[in-house]
């Protein structure tokens, strides 16, 4: 009776894929996650700080933005340095009077606009 020779089975080693082999994929995924987090934070800040309410680039505000016309020339303002002599005091008075008139003349946010009479629902 012939002796049975044990068969040697050669097992091929299967390469185990480690995280370091997927560097690119992980990088892409992490970048997407980080940018999503940053977008969420910035959107939260955008709406919570009141910036949203002032944003004229929102849809529907194009007309309002266009009607704004030309931007007024930049206001120079009063210099914080120098002597405070009569000429400087007069210069301040002139500058201040212009700006004060500007803000006093506009009757901003009068609540009558939303009264039943103004809305025609009286």
């Amino acid at each position: 009776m012939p002796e049975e020779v044990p068969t040697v089975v050669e097992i091929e080693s299967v390469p185990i894929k480690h995280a370091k082999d997927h560097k690119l994929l992980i990088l892409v995924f992490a970048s997407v996650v980080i940018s999503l987090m940053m977008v969420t934070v910035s959107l939260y800040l955008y709406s919570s700080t009141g910036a949203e309410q002032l944003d004229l680039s929102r849809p529907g505000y194009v007309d309002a933005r266009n009607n704004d016309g030309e931007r007024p020339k930049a206001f120079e303002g009063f210099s914080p340095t120098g002597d405070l002599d009569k000429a400087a005091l007069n210069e301040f008075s002139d500058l201040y009077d212009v700006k004060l008139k500007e803000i006093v003349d506009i009757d901003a946010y009068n609540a009558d606009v939303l009264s039943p009479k103004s809305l025609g629902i009286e």
Partner: protein
Amino acid sequence: MPQITKKYTFIFAAAIAAASLAGIGTSRAIEESADTQVETMKSKCTELTSSLSQLERSDTLLRNNIGDAYLTVSKELMVPLNQRIAANQLDGGALVEIAAKYKDTYDDEFYVDFKEYEISLSETLKISCRDQPREFYEGITESRDKRKKLYRSSKKIISLAQEYKKEYVAFKKQMIKDAQ
């Protein structure tokens, strides 16, 4: 004596009853008026929504312009003058105080009030005035109250700017007097 007490008790009770009836009457009148307004609103829905949207846009534009003007008064005029007064070692305590109040009113009242008003108005505009006229009406009422608050803070800023001017005139007079 007990009769007088009784008499007064009766008068007091009658007065309370009359006041309650008047109160009920007034609140009923307000309710009826609100109902009429809700019905009118329902019929003028499209017109109303359109004018409110327009108001929202013009308010935002106004907020940008008026906000700039308010800030300019503080940043370009009040603060530099106060710095110049301090640099020249002069007494401008009252001016500094008003300038600080002005800035606080802008940051803590005007800025916040506009934000709340704008949110209220835009939330109202999201309500369908045809399907939910009562909610739409309440939204308008709330926006009106918020606008009143905003108006008050805007007026407060203006009054502080005027107060600063008055104080400045007194300061200037004193300066010229001292120089002579």
